[in-house]
Every structure is written in C-alpha cells, then in structure tokens.
C-alpha cells in the first residue's frame, strides 16, 4: 500500500515537474529577438538595419547585468534605456508602450518616466549617436 502510494505521489510529482520544465523551456524562445553584443571601450555598437521592421530592439550586452531597450524615435534619433527598475534593481520587461517590473509593480513609459510606483526615479538613459550605419550607445 505504501509503495503504491509512493509511486502514485512520485508520478504526480514527475508529471507536474514536466509541466514546469515545459514552462522553463519557454525561456529558449526569449533569446530570439534579442540582439547580443559586447562592450568595446565603454561603447556598444548596433546596426541601424535592425530597425527596418520594428522601432524597438532589446540589446543584450555581454557582462552587463541588464538589457538595454533601444528605441527609434519619430525624428530618427535613438533612445537607449537600461531595463533596471530604479526601485529594487529588478530587471524590467517591455510591454509595448513602456516597461513593467514584476517584483513590486512599478511601471515606466517609453521614455523611462515613472507611471506608477513604488519606483520614484526615471530609468537610466544612455546617450546615442549614429556613425555611418551603426548606432553607438555610450555606457559612460
């Protein structure tokens, strides 16, 4: 009886764990639209061609703890925001019209201004410039 119960419990556990791993596997999809690059002399370089079909690109920089949201503005300039919540340093996710922190619920608009607390400060913004066909983000 005990053995049967143990097997039954173990099977339930395995089934639920499998469901869990299926969710974890979703993370592999997360990498698809992210542009990965490295820092060279405190600068990051991104090809302008990435913005042909979208105005927003998530940049994942090697050795940087948070992603950068690089947005093409209406005047063809680019704004770069660090996706780090200014409240408790949790990473943010893009919602389409801004950013959201799942840890305490802070919300930011596309420019990085606080829409809803507990965060009180705007997101860190990096300066950008376009040199030939590259967007250069200065991390200093």
């Amino acid at each position, binding site marked *: 009886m*005990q053995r049967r*119960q*143990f097997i*039954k*419990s*173990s099977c*339930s*556990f395995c089934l*639920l*764990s499998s*469901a*869990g791993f299926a*969710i*974890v596997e*979703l*993370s592999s*999809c*997360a*990498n*698809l*639209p*992210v542009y990965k690059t490295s820092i060279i002399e405190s600068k990051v370089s991104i090809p302008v061609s990435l913005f042909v079909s979208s105005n927003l690109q*998530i940049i*994942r920089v090697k*050795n940087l*703890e*948070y*992603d950068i949201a690089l947005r093409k503005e209406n005047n063809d300039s680019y704004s770069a925001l660090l*996706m780090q919540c200014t*409240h*408790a*340093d949790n*990473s943010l*996710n*893009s*919602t*389409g*019209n*801004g950013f*959201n922190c*799942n*840890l*305490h*619920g802070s*919300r930011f608009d596309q420019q990085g201004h*606080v*829409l*809803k*607390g*507990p*965060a*009180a400060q705007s997101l860190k913004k990096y300066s950008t410039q376009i040199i030939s066909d590259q967007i250069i983000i200065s991390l200093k």
Partner: protein
Amino acid sequence: MRVLLSILLLSFCQFVLAQSESTAEDSLHKGLSSFISNTSIGGYGNVLYKRNFNQDYSSINLERFVLFLGHKFSKKIYFFSELEVEDALVSGAEEGGEIALEQCYLKFNTNPNNYFVAGLFLPRIGILNENHLPNTFNGNERTQVETLILPSTWRELGIAYYGNLNRIPLTYSIALMNGLDAASFEHGSALREGRFEGRNASANNLALSASLKYNKNNLIAQISSYYGGSVGLAAKQADSLQLDSGFFGTPVLVNEANLQYESNGFSLRLLGSYISIPNALEINRAYASNTPQSAYGVYLEAAYNIFKVLHSGYNQELNFFARYEKLDLNYSIPENGIIDETLNQQHIVIGLNYLPIKNVSIKADIRLQHTGKQNPALIINPSPTLPVYKLDNTFLNLGIGYSF
C-alpha cells in the same frame, strides 16, 4: 652599538607596523565601500486607525514595519530579505505582535530575463502576494479576498524559476515548495493557518505553483495555480488518522485569475480565486477543524486619479476608488462540516488614496460589510454579554503608508 641597533630595530618595527596598519585600514575601507555599494536597504510600513461601528470601538495600530536588506554578491548572485515587525511590539508571553521573515532568498540570474530563487519567497499567486507595498494598492486594508481566500502574504520555502519572453509580453513562473499543514487549518480562515511561513515546515509534502502573466500596453492578465499536499506526517501517523500522506497527499488546489488595466488615471482590477480541498471530510474527521471542501472569492475595483483632471501632468495622485468583494469561505462543505453563513460575505469599500509622492500614501475609506446569519450550532457556551450578531457592519479606516 647595541643601543643603536635596538633603536634601528624599534624604528623598523614601528615602520612595518605603521605600514601594516595602514594597509589593513585601506583594505577595510575598500571592503566597506564595496560592501555598501553592493548592499541595498529599503522598507515599508503603515499605521491604521479603524472604527468598528457595531462594536462601537476604535483602534489604532502600527500594523507593519518592514525592512528590506539586499546584497549583490556578483553579477549573477543576489541576496534579498524582508524582516517584518507586526503591531509594533512583541513582548514575552503577551498576545499580539509578530516578528517574521517575509522573504529571505538567494537569486541566481541565468540571463537578464530569467532567474531562479531559492529560500523563503512569495509565490506568484494573485496581485497582492508579491505587490503589497501600502502605496501600491487602494484602501487601508488589503482586500478581503486576498487575505482570506488567498492567504497573502503567502511565503514558503523552496525554489522558483521566473522568466519573461521578448517577442511576446509574457512572464512565467514555476515554484516547488513545502506544502501546507492541514492540522493547523482553522474554521473561518481557509488555508491561512496552514502556512508554515518558513518555520520547521514538513518536507514530506510538497507543493507546485505556476503562473502566466500577459502584459501588453496597459493591460495585465494573469492566471496562476497551486497544487500541494497538506499532510506532512509520516505514513504510519497519517494512516492512523486515515489521511493520505506523501508529496501530494490530501491535496489542496488553488486557482486564481486576475486582470489589471490602467490608462490616463483610470485603473481597474478584477480578481477571482477558487480553493478546492477534496479530502476535507478526512481532514475534519482527523482534526475537527470544520474545513470546507471549497471556497471562492472575487473582487472588482475601479479607481480614478482625480488630479489627472484637475492638474494634468501633476506628479501627485488623489485616487478615488470603489471596490466590491464577494467571498464564501464555505462554499461547499463535506458531510461532517457545519455551514457558517457568516463566512459568506460581501464588502463594498469606497475611499480616497492620496500620494503626495510615489512613496507615501495617506488613505481614508469606509467598508460596508454584509454577511449571512450566524449558525447557532457553532456557538458553544455563548457569553450572556455577547451582543446580537448583526448581518451588516461598517468600518471607517484612516491610515498612512510608505515604502522606499
């Protein structure tokens, strides 16, 4: 000569000592500076004045004082904790007050979008369980549904994985943690007293929870689920009580879904939750706790920031809100249960929430409560001074809250 040598030796020793002291001090400062830059402190708290009109009694209480302490060990590994003092004073042998760790975990980043936590954490169930800072919700009291049906703040020991996609604005989580304790279930509080909250939890029974959260533009839609065993006894003990033990023995299932919408000062929250305890009959037979077979709760809250009209772009907020809550803690009971209609409740809360800055809130609200009738079968040795139970009651709440 000997004197000269002694002086030289002494001078050298002093020099070496001076150098070593300086080096130690320097490294101490360096270490301290590094420690401070990698360590964060925060907190939240609230004070509540409450008037119970049926009881003709008012109280004022420093409900919560919570300190966060976090530390970054490396770019991949973090520590996070919340230490809470409830009701301001915890004194030996006196009732009331609580010091508790609300969270205490290590966080391991796999990349900026995905991370694990291990330790005492709050699983993602409902809205307030994770986001309960007093300046982030309307009303002085947390919602009744997320207090009585979802026992926020619900924390347990285990591991959890969190992540979000980039292509689709979808966030997901899955957690494995210790289960509940059916022996501690109490009539009228559903699962609340069965939480271990990190203290000597039984690990014979486990629980899994998972959530999916869709966050597109101004809309957040979430579903979450919890499934866990509630009997952590050894098999022999459980058999003697005719209870199922094991990882998911005598299971508890909690399902929850919520919607949140915010735009131009208007906000809406809708949440529904359902608890199922299929073996409630066996739990009652073993512990006589009048555990229900199922319970549910829903609420709808609408709020508008009045300052949005009066001062467009004003950084302060004055939120007027109204909330309706319906819950039944004994929606269905087993054969050996006793129905208690006082647990079939409706609440209407109307109030104002003023935020002079994002981190501080000043709140005023009125809660109208309506319940079903008392069941005389549940009143044992009634006191002669016990007032007649009234189906309707009114509460006036005034309070302040902060977080940083």
